[in-house]
Structures are given as C-alpha cells and as structure tokens.
C-alpha cells in the first residue's frame, strides 16, 4: 500500500481514504493515538479500540487493532466489560463530544468515578457533524448550529473539569494543532493505571466552521495555535490565560484501580 510505515502497520489501509470531510481534525487526532501506541511499543493484539456513534467513532474502522464500534454513548460501558473480562488489555475509547457528554454523559461520570483502567479520548469538534450540524454540549455560547440558528444560549461543558470532578485520575487536553502534546497526553493516559480522560480539540470545517465563519481548515488550525495556552504558562502568569483555552496536563493522581480492587476481593474470598 502506498503510505508511510506507521499507516502500513496500524491502519486497515484498504479501508482508506476515510469518510471524514476535507480538513477534518479527526484524522490528525487519530494519528496521535497511533503514534502514541507505536511510541509505547504496545502489542497490537493487546490493544482494543472502542467507539460509540458519530464522526469520531468511525476511527476504529480504519485502525488495525481489536476494534469495536458500539451504540451511541455506550462505548465506555462496552469498554468496561472488555477490561473486566481481560484486564491485561489496553482499552482505548474514542468518543465525540456529543457521544461522551450528552448521550453517554452518565457513562462518562461513572467510568471516571470507578477509576477503571481505560483511556478515554474525546474528539471534540463542538458540533454533531454526522447528523448535519446540530449544537452539542460543547458548542460555545452564542455560536450557530442548525438547531441554534440565532445563537446557542446553553453554556458549554468543560469536559476536563467534569471528568476530574467525577474522579478520573489522569486528565489532559490537547488539540489537533498541538499534535505532539496530544500524543504525549495519550501516552501518559495509557500508562496511567486508572481512568484517563484526554480531550482533543478537533476542528469541523464543514458544519461548525462554515456556519460560524471560521474559514478554511488551515485557518481553524491557526485559531487553535493562537488561542490555546499551556497550563504550565498560566500557572506562572495567570494573565496569559485570560480568554484563552487552557491545554496541557491538568491532573495526574494515581488511585487504586477498579479491576485490581475486584481481584483483591476474589483472592480474599478464595482464601
């Protein structure tokens, strides 16, 4: 197949090109997951990629791991079952913003609370792209969508704060533009023995971008470049974080892991 070595090794190249629109950030974010797995040298047979429904959830179809494309919002529930059945697997869940925080919002907070060893990666494009551009729980206040033609009056979720508040033990935010940071966060997330939540700010030039006059895909990348500040910078000088999107590693606090705690009970009862 005519492609680079990582694509040859980790993609189902016969399924490419993928369905995503020209310039969609999801392709770039999927590559960050692939490079993180490659960097950690994980055995492909011990990696499981699970997804729900939506643009983002098409990703596992193109990836050559054990993959599972599940129902809307329920990716974490299926992933919990997989991890419980075989705790030695590395389970990575790819969800969209709507999939993870609206339809699957309850699954997200409870998977976070349990601290089960799953790495959840959210491709946040601020919109329901696949169904035609309805506003999602992360559409910014005032922005336009097909279902908010006069502007969105809902406040958007801060997904990282939500996951951290619910009990996730590793939390970070990267973007499609900050691909090397995103890759590093995913590597750390996979290595964290517990629930890791990594939000990847994606870009939707078709539905979100066009309706809100954000310009070309390259212009949307430039927006991410100019409007995101690393947490380390803001910690030193809070002024620099004013009206900016904060990215980077937010929380890293390992706690007892769910399947391990369960094994302790099994061992105890078997005497």
């Amino acid at each position, binding site marked *: 197949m*005519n*492609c*680079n*070595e990582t*694509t040859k090794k980790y*993609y189902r190249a016969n399924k*490419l*090109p*993928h369905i*995503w*629109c*020209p*310039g*969609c*950030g*999801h*392709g*770039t974010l999927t*590559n960050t997951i692939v490079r993180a797995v490659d960097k950690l040298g994980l055995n492909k047979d011990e990696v499981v990629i699970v997804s729900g429904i939506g643009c983002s959830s098409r990703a596992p179809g193109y990836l050559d791991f054990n993959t599972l494309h599940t129902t809307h919002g329920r990716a974490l529930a299926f992933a919990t079952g997989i991890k419980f059945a075989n705790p030695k697997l590395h389970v990575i869940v790819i969800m969209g913003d709507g999939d993870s925080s609206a339809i699957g919002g309850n699954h997200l907070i409870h998977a976070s609370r349990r601290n089960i060893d799953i790495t959840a990666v959210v491709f946040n494009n601020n919109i329901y792209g696949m169904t035609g551009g309805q506003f999602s729980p992360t559409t910014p206040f005032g922005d336009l969508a097909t279902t908010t033609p006069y502007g969105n009056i809902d406040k958007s979720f801060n997904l990282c704060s939500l996951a951290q508040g619910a009990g996730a033990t590793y939390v970070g935010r990267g973007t499609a533009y900050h*691909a*090397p940071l995103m890759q590093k966060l995913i590597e750390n997330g996979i290595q964290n023995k517990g629930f890791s939540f990594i939000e990847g700010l994606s870009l939707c*030039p078709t539905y979100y971008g066009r309706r809100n006059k954000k310009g*070309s*895909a*390259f212009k949307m*990348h*430039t927006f991410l470049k100019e409007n995101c500040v690393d947490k380390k910078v803001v910690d030193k000088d809070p002024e620099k974080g004013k009206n900016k999107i904060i990215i980077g590693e937010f929380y890293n606090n390992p706690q007892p892991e769910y399947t391990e705690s369960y094994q302790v009970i099994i061992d105890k009862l078997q005497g």
Partner: protein
Amino acid sequence: MADERILLQNIPWCKGCGVCVGFCPTKVLEIKDNKCFIANRDKCILCGQCELRCPDNAIWIGGKK
C-alpha cells in the same frame, strides 16, 4: 552521506483540504485540481510538517521510491 529521504504522496487519498499547503514553511506545495501538488520539490527541507498535519495520511517523508 546525502539524505536519501524524499517527499511522497498517495494522490487518491488526498482531499485537497490545503492544511499541508498552509503549514509548509518553504512553499513546496500547491492545490491543483482540488489535490495537493508538489510544485517546488527542490525547496523541500524534509521537515515533516505536512506528514504531521495531513488528516488523510496522503503525504509523507519516506525512502526513495
């Protein structure tokens, strides 16, 4: 030893989004007929920005064909 690596493309995978064209620091790339086109190959410095940014894995730095 001369660098044997070269900029390669899989044209059928390219959707002509222009992200690589925007990021290329030496203006090697252009959009032609809705696809990325290597217009100035001699200017390529093999920085790999196009490969890092391309959402479609359609352009990369590889060994010589």
